């Protein structure tokens, strides 16, 4: 299992296409994140995070806050560690045996990696949407009902129906599928599948939703729907989204964090990052010089 997961996560570290001098620049032992990584009203905090896959360091000394009800975008070239960082936030890296995480994480001030932390409850509070739509090979209804069932959120069928309908509505999928709730979720189109996965994630009422390149497998129209949806979800949830599309980051997020080779280079207001990046690397990336 390990190899398979690792592939998707560490492949391409150091894949940066462009100049070598930039790489050397980043690899200097000490670095300072430019911008404001901390938030006055933090939902989640991460301090001095280092992540290793066996001996290989995937993340180096990253500190970042995720503010309440904000959408924070994490951008950067392939293999820069943004997905790895995202996965540390709900301990999805735990299932990779070779992965080792250092640093302090908190959700509403509560230690995520503490000895008494229940990963099951943590993941119910910090949900995740993945790169490839991955509905269960079950009916649409069962897909959404899965989380509420395992966490015992509904006491009877009527309540469960209500949760399912409500989640599908919030994921703006209900009207499209209301007549085929018993059809397999895998039969939907790619964009619908991804919205189904979002509905599935919000069915357990998480506080934070982590999205790992949720639109990378979708066409532009489906992508636009998801982006609208993210904007709507912001009212009730805190969202961290990893994306390869800078336009997407600019459209959906309030803050943007730029990762490069496992380091958090720059973080700030999205508008500022995209109009006046302070770091040379950020500028190179957003102007398309590499990535």
């Amino acid at each position, binding site marked *: *299992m390990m190899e398979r997961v690792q592939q998707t996560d560490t492949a391409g570290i150091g894949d940066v296409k462009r100049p070598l001098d930039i790489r050397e620049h980043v690899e200097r032992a000490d670095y300072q994140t430019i911008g404001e990584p901390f938030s006055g009203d933090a939902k989640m905090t991460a301090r001095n995070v280092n992540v290793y896959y066996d001996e290989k360091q995937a993340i180096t000394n990253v500190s970042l806050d995720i503010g309440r009800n904000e959408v924070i975008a994490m951008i950067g070239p392939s293999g820069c560690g943004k997905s790895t960082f995202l996965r540390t936030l709900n301990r999805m890296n735990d*299932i990779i045996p070779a992965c080792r995480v250092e640093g302090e994480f908190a959700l509403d001030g509560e230690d995520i990696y503490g000895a008494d932390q229940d990963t099951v409850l943590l993941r119910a509070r910090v*949900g995740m949407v993945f790169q490839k739509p991955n509905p*269960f*090979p*079950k009916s649409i209804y069962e897909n959404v009902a899965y989380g509420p069932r395992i966490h015992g959120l509904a006491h009877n069928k009527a309540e469960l129906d209500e949760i399912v309908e409500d989640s599908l509505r919030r994921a703006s999928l209900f009207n499209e599928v209301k007549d085929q709730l018993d059809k397999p979720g895998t039969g939907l189109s790619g964009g619908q599948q991804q919205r189904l996965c979002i509905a599935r994630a919000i069915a357990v009422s998480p506080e934070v939703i982590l999205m790992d390149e949720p639109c990378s497998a979708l066409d532009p129209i489906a992508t636009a729907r998801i982006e609208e949806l993210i904007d709507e979800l912001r009212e009730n949830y805190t969202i961290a989204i990893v994306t390869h599309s800078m336009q997407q980051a600019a459209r959906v997020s309030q803050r943007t964090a730029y990762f490069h080779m496992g380091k958090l280079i720059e973080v700030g207001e999205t508008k500022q990052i995209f109009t006046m990046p302070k770091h040379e690397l950020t500028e190179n990336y957003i102007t398309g010089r590499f990535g």
Partner: protein
Amino acid sequence: METTTVFLVLVLLTFISFFAGRKRSHAVTSGLGGVRSLHSLPKHYGYMAALWALLPALLILVLWLVLENSILARIVMNELPGGVRELPVNEQGLYFNQIVSYARGAIDAAQLDAAQIAAADHYRDLSSSSRTIKALLVFLVAILGAALALRRIRPALRARNHVEGIFKWILFACSFLAVLTTLGIVLSVLFEAIRFFHAIPLMDFLFGLEWSPQMAIRADQVAASGSFGFVPLLVGTLLISTVAMVIAVPVGLMSAIYLSEYATRRFRAITKPVLEILAGVPTVVYGFFAALTVAPFIRDLGATLGLHVASESALAAGLVMGIMIIPFVMSLSDDIINAVPDTLREASLGMGATMNETIRKVLLPAALPGIVGGILLAVSRAIGETMIVVMAAGLSARLTINPLEAVTTITVQIVTLLVGDQEFDNPKTLAAFALGLVLFFVTLLLNVIALYVVRKYREQYE
């Protein structure tokens, strides 16, 4: 010339054709700018020439070998006196065999009549000329094939595509051979079984409740009533298979789950090969393990509990058969569970499901069709298993579903019927073929059901 020599010469010719073809491809381009002007690489022209030399000649050789004897027999038999040709088919065969044996010098003339000796001389002449003609024909066809191929070589010839096409047909022929073999086996069993059903009505066989395959050899023999009721055997087979599956399915499936989902890589690397050794133990070893260790143990255990357990109980045979099948079930299930995409695991774990919930609610449903298919394959294996039951299950065809009693199975009876002296015109012997046929249909049915289940309950994942 002996067939082996013919074949070796043919192989030699093939090699020569290869080099000739390659050389010719160089020759035809000498004025045209060399090898670059060829459509294919020189070696492809070589392959083409070699295949043209080999395949038709090989086909003729094989056909000759297959048909030679029966054609020779027909020629010789036609020249024998009319009285011989009116003999029953069996005796004609015997008569002819004597001729062949004499021609080969295996028996001496004293046992034969004059007509047979004359026929034997003729047979000897015929078969020696047959050998010569065979060799000449094969070489001629090989050389002709190679010559034809060589003549066709020119720069525009698409030798590469041509060779590709020939290989496709060779592959097709191989798969066709497998189908033919299966068909041949089924037919040979079928014809013997039909002979059996001439003696014993089909309904008596399929629905009879008593199995005691004793046929009178003499008319006045005591206890000469044979009864060929198949039901006790079927019930015995199913009983033992059920016991085996009750052991094998939970243990195999759960160890597969442990290995694929929980075990560390190190543990898996050690355990899986060890479990697979179980699959490598010859069934005869399981057989005496069952007969000498497990069966007495179960009998004694039963005795201490106040139960009467036969010393050759269905339970003992089934238990050991179950152990034999564990690695089979485990290995198949493990592959299938591993094939469930990791994205589904992540999806479930990411929602806060525990590992156990993920396995029960996501992985197993997704893997179910494959697992059911694997289990049904294991059932087929249990039903067809012979050695363990021969040694451990006994021979008494009792109609019971009590696993503590001795029962017998279809395969055991086939073995018993065919071991020792038999005559092939006796229903007792032919019954083995009928049993084989039924066994074939039972496993076929199981496979069909397996396919149906797999298709119906498949949860599609990408």
